[in-house]
């Protein structure tokens, strides 16, 4: 995980020892060093700054409480990242996102006719643009398309394809069966594909 400007590499073992001893200077170092990427991960799931700040607060408190269980052989950054993602998910649940679970993406799924062939010919997408400016612009459109997905699908996509959780871990986080988790990710990717289609055909 990259460091914010002006922050030097720190010795994790020393930091953890100082934290366990209750040093508030060490805690401030922890916050400044690991806070920015943790906040970015929470922000990605929660989509809003205030909620991301709240999740970050919860994450640091949880990390502080769990410090005794932290094992020196795992990376502190990875451990804290997971805690931040968990805090963001708790926040999502607390916000009652379940109400939205009825929202569906049926109209973004491909249509089949007859014996199960595509109802319309599928256009081949052009290769991704190499020009960094065009590419950045495209990434902006992709973020907008991901934001258009109903929350349960957006969250499943972020956890599986960006946080790289396994299907089993995803199922556990979402509180559904492994099969249901796989289906949700598949539908989310298909919906994203449909939302990106006009843009990708435009590039051809």
């Amino acid at each position, binding site marked *: 995980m990259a460091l914010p400007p002006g922050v030097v590499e720190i010795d994790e073992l020393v930091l953890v020892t100082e934290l366990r001893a209750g040093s*508030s200077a060490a805690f401030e170092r922890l916050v400044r060093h690991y806070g920015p990427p943790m906040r970015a991960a929470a922000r990605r799931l929660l989509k809003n700054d205030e909620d991301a700040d709240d999740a970050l607060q919860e994450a640091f408190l949880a990390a502080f409480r769990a410090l005794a269980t932290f094992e020196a052989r795992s990376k502190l950054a990875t451990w804290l990242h997971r805690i931040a993602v968990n805090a963001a998910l708790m926040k999502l649940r607390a916000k009652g996102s379940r109400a939205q679970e009825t929202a569906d993406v049926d109209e973004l799924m491909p249509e089949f006719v007859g014996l199960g062939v595509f109802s319309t010919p599928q256009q081949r997408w052009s290769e991704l643009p190499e020009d960094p400016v065009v590419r950045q612009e495209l990434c902006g459109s992709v973020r907008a398309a991901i934001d258009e997905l109903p929350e349960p699908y957006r969250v499943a996509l972020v956890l599986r394809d960006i946080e790289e959780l396994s299907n089993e871990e995803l199922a556990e986080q979402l509180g559904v069966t492994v099969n249901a988790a796989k289906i949700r990710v598949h539908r989310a990717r298909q919906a994203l594909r449909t939302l990106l289609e006009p843009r990708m055909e435009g590039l051809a």
Partner: protein
Amino acid sequence: VNCARFQVAVHEYYRGTLSAAEHVEVETHAGVCPPCGRLKATCEEIACKEVVGFLPEYLEHELAPARKRLFERHFDICPDCSAYLHAYRSSIALAAEALAEPAEAPPLSEELVRDLVARAKKPKP
């Protein structure tokens, strides 16, 4: 219908968008031309709908070898499924790229750092 036309028309045949005359011509041609007959048989091995339904298993190498070969034969002859697979993969790659953490996440505001440190100092509930 010649072989070149057949390769395009066979997909329209299954979509049900050919004229009645062309529909019959496709069937007749498949009956007399062995390569085109094999192409039509391959089209009938598995439906696009089923291929699309199992894309995650295909991409994650969870299909049994014989079934994986069946999918690959289908991608070779079906322009719709091969285009869909390409777009599906591109979508995953683009999502990962678009949401990747910036190389340098912006620093936390001083106010937030103060809040975080202050809360950690409070007695635990």
